């Protein structure tokens, strides 16, 4: 599966973590070589992560040794999914005290990430935590510091970091195929009330705050942390830098049902070299779907649709001759007609596919990387830093929308 990823030059620069697939850690098949993982939070995302880990269990000798969820349904579901083989807990502290683990995967509501991650790292465990990292800036920094102080791995679930399409795109960008980058544009547009659970008694009830936590300011920054952070990470990564500042605005203009988080927002990030990244999110119109465009002087890359477009593709010689004949006012016989021209490879609306491997499961690849890093005892620092910067700038973007100010990175959070 990972053969397609091997041998590209960006492995050593933009995506050093990919080299783990060319040089995986030796995995013995005995019980003593087994990587033992606990899963904290088995909601919608946690379930996906758990299922992906199970796919790796034989090939990488991984065991889901423990599961944890405070919600009874999910607690029971976790037991079922692991066929009772994993020890089940309601409290993650008991889990990490009682079960011998190498690592945890955390997929709980955003406001729970920080203390769980810090506790696990300090308990000597490696951590894969879903994005975004935390609800508040100082918590993000605490997580990062705990990772540095403990020496344990901390990875954040921006799975595009392990997407083959992005790998191909980064290679193209670095090779200069689209020329100098002059702008980034991104958006995530959906038409949905975004209600995960509708049997909670409505907005504002205790149950709703617990289940539909994404709607409440105490627990989440809404689409900023839950959706946008993916693309903020991508922008940092493509530009090889974090922003200089962010400006923005947000509001609730359609789903005014008592939720506390925006149903639409628009942001402008300023980057070094005078490059801007404009990003917007809306939940009341899905026409535009989801996209990140990298605009260069010679081409455009559409990361989410696996496409690149040349700005000025070469014309066939006969067309060039015809244009020349018009400019020189010479009406000549030009051999311009004949059998149908067909492209050498697949093509779509003037663009070309970045990677033929676009159906690959990047979550699975990321977890595969995580397990290998655990065996080696360390992960590339750049990978953790990507997660850190994306999380910090997500929260700074929130601040920008709330204050109406241009927001810069406070010194305390420079790493």
């Amino acid at each position, binding site marked *: 599966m990972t053969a397609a990823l091997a041998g590209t030059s960006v492995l050593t620069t933009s995506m050093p973590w990919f080299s783990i697939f060319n040089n995986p850690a030796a995995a013995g098949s005995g019980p003593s070589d087994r990587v033992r993982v606990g899963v904290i939070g088995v909601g919608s995302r946690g379930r996906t992560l758990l299922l992906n880990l199970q796919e790796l269990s034989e090939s990488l000798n991984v065991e889901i040794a423990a599961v944890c969820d405070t919600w009874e349904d999910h607690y029971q579901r976790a037991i079922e999914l692991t066929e009772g083989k994993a020890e089940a807990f309601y409290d993650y502290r008991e889990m990490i005290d009682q079960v011998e683990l190498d690592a945890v995967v955390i997929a709980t509501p955003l406001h729970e990430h920080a203390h769980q991650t810090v506790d696990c790292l300090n308990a000597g465990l490696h951590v894969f935590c879903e994005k975004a990292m935390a609800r508040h800036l100082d918590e993000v920094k605490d997580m990062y510091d705990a990772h540095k102080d403990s020496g344990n791995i901390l990875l954040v679930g921006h799975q595009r970091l392990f997407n083959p399409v992005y790998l191909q795109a980064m290679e193209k960008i670095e090779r200069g195929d689209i020329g100098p980058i002059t702008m980034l544009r991104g958006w995530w547009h959906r038409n949905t009330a975004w209600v995960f659970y509708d049997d909670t008694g409505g907005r504002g009830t205790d149950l709703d705050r617990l289940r539909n936590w994404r709607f409440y300011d105490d627990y989440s920054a809404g689409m900023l942390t839950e959706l946008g952070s993916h693309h903020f990470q991508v922008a940092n990564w493509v530009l090889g830098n974090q922003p200089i500042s962010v400006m923005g605005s947000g509001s609730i203009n359609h789903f005014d049902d008592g939720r506390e988080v925006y149903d639409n927002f628009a942001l402008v990030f300023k980057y070094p070299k005078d490059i801007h990244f404009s990003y917007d999110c809306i939940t009341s119109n899905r026409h535009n779907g989801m996209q990140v465009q990298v605009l260069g002087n010679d081409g455009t890359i559409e990361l989410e649709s696996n496409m690149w477009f040349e700005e000025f593709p070469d014309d066939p010689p006969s*067309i060039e001759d015809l244009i020349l004949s018009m400019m020189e006012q010479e009406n000549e016989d030009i051999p*311009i007609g004949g059998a*149908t021209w067909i492209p050498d490879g697949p093509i779509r609306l003037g663009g070309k596919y970045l990677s033929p491997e676009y159906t690959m499961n990047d979550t699975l690849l990321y977890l595969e990387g995580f397990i290998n890093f655990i065996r080696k005892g360390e992960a590339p620092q750049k990978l953790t830093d990507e997660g850190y910067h994306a999380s910090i700038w997500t929260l700074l973007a929130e601040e920008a929308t709330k204050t109406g100010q241009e927001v810069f990175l406070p010194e305390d959070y420079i790493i």
Partner: protein
Amino acid sequence: MNTRFHIIIPGIDDESGDRLFGAVKQEVNRIENKLSRFIPDSDVAMLNKKAANESVRADDEFFEIINACRFCWDITEGAFDPTLRPLMEYWKNRSEVDEADEKLISIKDNIGMEKVQIDSESKTIKFDSDGLEIDLGGFGKGYALEKVKYILEDASVKSAFISFGESSILALGEHPAGGSWKIGMNDYLNPGQSLHRFYVNGGSVSTSSNFFVSDNGRLKNHRHVIDPKIGQPVERCCSVSVSAESPVLAEMLSTAFLVSSDEVIYEVMNQYDHLEVIKVDYESGQGIVTEFEQKEADPMVQEDN
């Protein structure tokens, strides 16, 4: 449509050019979404999916398209037949001919434009057999050019050159240097040389061939051209180019004439003014051109001369 599209409008200002190009692109995409059998919810795909079991209601445009195909099938005595796709699939990976193969016989029994029932009152289409499929590959590019022509004429464009993958060309008005557009037919065995030239003034040239060209310069017999009379692919490497005022007529006739007898070609030519046809046979190692001339002198043409 898996090819490239060029549009050249001499002397147009930037803003009008951008707007026109946007309109043309949108229209071509719209047509592709309607006529491509590769797009799951296109009109053609839906028809192919349902019409063997039920009468399918077509919108006005799609109904006219199917009617036009039927008309061309009629005047070319069956040479233009958009139902031959199952035979193309059959011959795709086969070189030996076994006339008695039951599968081949069954396919032949189940295709043919005569098995497409068109009801003008209810504007519905129904297939008489299960194995039938409509493929508008020999129609779509010409149709798109026809629509592009309206857009350009509406915008008062006096002169323009449009090439759809080189095989479907529309030339509006005159060449900016004056006179008809001199549209050369590329000689694939001597690339860059014209085998023949058409003088076009507000008209089109369409080429059908049983090979494609790509940037590597090689000719590939795609075995897409089936002779409906014998139900087998045309093996001789050849092409037909038709010049006509209407791009969609040129497209359909070039598709048909690749498998038509000379008699049928002459018969059709005598029904239309300003129709020019050439056949090019590459089999001998050089492109041999046969020009078909309208047998009965056309008074219009004589006046022009």
